[in-house]
C-alpha cells in the first residue's frame, strides 16, 4: 500500500513539475464511479456464478448474446488499437507517436476485457484453462484461444519496451518503476525501438489474421447460419476493428488531454479523425457488398436475417446504433470541414465507439434468431439485467485498469513532456 502511495506522490510531483495536473476531485469521482459500477457488476457476476447461465436470457435457440457481442467488440478495439500502434512503430508514422503507448495499453486492456467476457459466458467457467490443454485443430475457436494468449504476451512485451527508458528514468524515485524496469539501466532507446519494430512486425499478421480475422472466422465457417457463412466476414471484422480501434484512441487521447488539463494537439486529433474517416468509408463500402450480394442473389436464409435486422425487433440496433450513430453521422463529421473542430472529432469518435456495439450485436444475435429448420421456434433475445450489469462492471474494470496504468506508468513520453526530444 505504502509503495502505491509513494508512487502516487512521485507521480503528483511529476505533474506539478511538467503539466498542470488533473483535478483531484474529478479523479476521485472517476475512480468512485468505476468502483461503484464494478461493485454492481460484481453482484451480477455473483448471481451468474451461483445460478449458472439461467441468470441470462440466453436459450438453446439463441445461445450467444450480449457477452459474445461485447467480446468481439473488445477484440476489435484491441486489434484496431494495436494496428494503429504498429503504424507508428513498424511503419514509422511518427506523427502519431504521442499516442503509441496509449494504443498498446488500450490494446492490452481491451484484450483482457474481451477474455473476461468469454470467461463468464462459458457454461463451465472452471474448465476455461482446459481449453488450452485440449485442442481441435478444425475449430477456429481453439486456434483463437491460443492466438489471444500469444497476442497478449506480445502486447505486454511491446508495452514494456515502449516504456522501458522512462521506467529506468523514474526508478530512482519510484519503487514501482524500479520494480517494473526489471533491472535494466540504460536510458538509450535505440535498442527499444528495434525491439518495438521487431515485435510489431510479428504482431501485425498475428493481429490481422490471428486475432481479428480469426475471430471473424469463428462466425464465417458456420454454414448453418445466414450472414455468417461468407468469406467477407473475416475481412469485415478486420476493417471494423480498424474503425473502432482508431475511434477509441482518438477519443481517449482527446479526453485524457482534457482531463489532465493538457493542450490537445489539434493537428494530431484531425489526423486521427482523417484516418478514422477513411476506415469508415471502407467499412461502409464493405457493408454495401455484404448486404447487396445476399439481397440480389435472393438467398432466402440470408435475406431472412437482413429482414430481422432491418424490420424486426432489432431494427433500432441496425438503423440507430450501427448505421446512424456508428457510421453515417461520424462519417459526415469526418468527411467535412467539421473535423477541424476538436470537440466534434471527439464526438464523432464517441459515436463510432458506441455505434460499433450495435454492429457487434447485429453480427451475433439476428442470425441466431432465425430458426435453422423451418418450423422450429424462432429465438427471442434481449439481455437480462444480470447481463447488462455484469457487462457494465467488466467494462468499468477495463477502464479502471486503463486509468490505473495511465496514472502509475509512464504512458506518456516523459522526455517529450518535458520538452526534451520532440519527435516531429
Amino acid at each position, binding site marked *: 500500500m505504502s509503495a502505491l502511495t509513494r508512487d502516487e506522490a512521485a507521480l503528483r510531483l511529476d505533474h506539478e513539475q511538467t503539466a498542470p495536473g488533473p483535478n483531484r476531485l474529478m479523479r476521485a469521482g472517476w475512480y468512485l464511479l468505476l468502483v461503484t459500477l464494478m461493485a454492481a457488476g460484481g453482484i451480477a457476476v455473483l448471481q451468474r456464478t451461483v445460478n449458472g447461465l439461467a441468470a441470462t436470457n440466453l436459450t438453446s435457440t439463441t445461445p450467444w448474446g450480449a457477452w459474445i457481442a461485447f467480446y468481439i467488440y473488445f477484440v476489435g478495439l484491441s486489434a484496431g488499437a494495436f494496428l494503429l500502434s504498429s503504424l507508428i512503430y513498424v511503419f514509422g508514422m511518427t506523427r502519431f507517436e504521442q499516442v503509441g503507448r496509449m494504443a498498446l495499453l488500450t490494446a492490452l486492456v481491451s484484450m483482457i476485457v474481451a477474455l473476461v467476457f468469454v470467461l463468464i459466458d462459458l457454461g463451465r467457467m472452471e474448465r476455461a484453462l*482446459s481449453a488450452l490443454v485440449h485442442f481441435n485443430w478444425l475449430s477456429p475457436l481453439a486456434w483463437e484461444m491460443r492466438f489471444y494468449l500469444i497476442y497478449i504476451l506480445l502486447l505486454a512485451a511491446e508495452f514494456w519496451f515502449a516504456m522501458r527508458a522512462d521506467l529506468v528514468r523514474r526508478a530512482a524515485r519510484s519503487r514501482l518503476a524500479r520494480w517494473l524496469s526489471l533491472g535494466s539501466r540504460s536510458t538509450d532507446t535505440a535498442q527499444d525501438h528495434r525491439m518495438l519494430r521487431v515485435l510489431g512486425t510479428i504482431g501485425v499478421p498475428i493481429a490481422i489474421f490471428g486475432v481479428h480475422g480469426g475471430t471473424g472466422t469463428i462466425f464465417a465457417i458456420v454454414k448453418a447460419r445466414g450472414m455468417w457463412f461468407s468469406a467477407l466476414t473475416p475481412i469485415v471484422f478486420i476493417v471494423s476493428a480498424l474503425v473502432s480501434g482508431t475511434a477509441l484512441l482518438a477519443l481517449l487521447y482527446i479526453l485524457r488531454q482534457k482531463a489532465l488539463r493538457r493542450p490537445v494537439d489539434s493537428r494530431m486529433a484531425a489526423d486521427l479523425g482523417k484516418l478514422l474517416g477513411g476506415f469508415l468509408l471502407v467499412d461502409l463500402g464493405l457493408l454495401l457488398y455484404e448486404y447487396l450480394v445476399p439481397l440480389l442473389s435472393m438467398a432466402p436464409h440470408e435475406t431472412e436475417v437482413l429482414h430481422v435486422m432491418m424490420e424486426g425487433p432489432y431494427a433500432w440496433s441496425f438503423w440507430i446504433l450501427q448505421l446512424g450513430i456508428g457510421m453515417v453521422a461520424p462519417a459526415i463529421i469526418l468527411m467535412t470541414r467539421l473535423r477541424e473542430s476538436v470537440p466534434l472529432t471527439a464526438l464523432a469518435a464517441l459515436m463510432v465507439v458506441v455505434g460499433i456495439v450495435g454492429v457487434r450485436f447485429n453480427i451475433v444475435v439476428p442470425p441466431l434468431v432465425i430458426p*435453422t429448420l423451418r418450423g422450429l421456434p424462432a429465438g427471442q433475445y434481449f439481455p437480462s439485467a444480470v447481463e447488462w450489469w455484469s457487462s457494465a462492471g467488466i467494462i468499468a474494470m477495463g477502464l479502471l485498469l486503463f486509468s490505473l496504468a495511465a496514472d502509475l506508468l509512464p504512458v506518456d513520453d516523459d522526455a517529450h513532456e518535458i520538452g526534451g526530444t520532440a519527435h516531429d
Partner: protein
Amino acid sequence: MTAAAPEPGSRKEPQWAMVIDLQKCIGCDTCTVSCKAENRTPPGISYNVVIAMELGEFPNTRRAYLPRPCMQCDSPPCAGVCPVGATYKGESGVVIIDHDRCIGCRYCIAACPYGARSFDFGEGYDEMIAYAEVQAPEYGVRRGPRWRGEAPIGTVRKCTFCLHRINRGEEPACVETCIGDARYFGDLNDPNSVVAKLASSPRAFRLREELGTQPRVIYLK
C-alpha cells in the same frame, strides 16, 4: 502397437441409422414424450421434437409433420467447431458429447444446422418427486443425482440415438414407442437391414442436404 488393431475406416462396428417414414407419422408427439422420459431431460430440452407445418394457402392447405432427432451427421459441423474436441463422431456413427470435457461455449449449438443441440441450464422438474435423484443414463454413464455443479449441467446435450439402450440390444425409445411405426432403426452397413434397404428407396431424402453434412437420419417422403 501391433497391426492387430482394426483400422478406423474399416467400420467393423455397426453403423447406426434411422429412417422416418413421413407418410406414417401422425404428429402424436409420442417420440418426444418417450424421449424425455427415457433421457430424463430437464425443462426446455427435447432431443426429439416433431415440427408441425401448415403447407399451402387456404383453402388448399395441408398439415405436415417432421420429427427431428439428432441427425448424427457423417460430417458433423458441431464436432468440427468444438474447441476442445468434447463432441465427436463415435465408432458406430453416433455423435457423442464428453460432458466431462465440454466447456459450455455453445459454439456447437450455433453451428448445428438442425437445431438439435441444447444447453443444460441446470433447471429441473422440482415438482416431480425424486426427479433429481436419477441422472440421465447417457452413453451408459451413471452420473448419480442431478446436482448443481455436476455434469451435464452447464454443458451441451443432445440425442444419442439412446446409445445406452442400443448397447443393451434395444432400440431407441422413440423408435420403440412410435404409434404409427414410422421409425426404423438399424445398421446401415448390413445390406439386409430394413434401414439399408429403405435408405436407397426413391422416397428417401435427407434434411439440408446442400450443406454436405450427410445425416444418418433418412426421411421417406
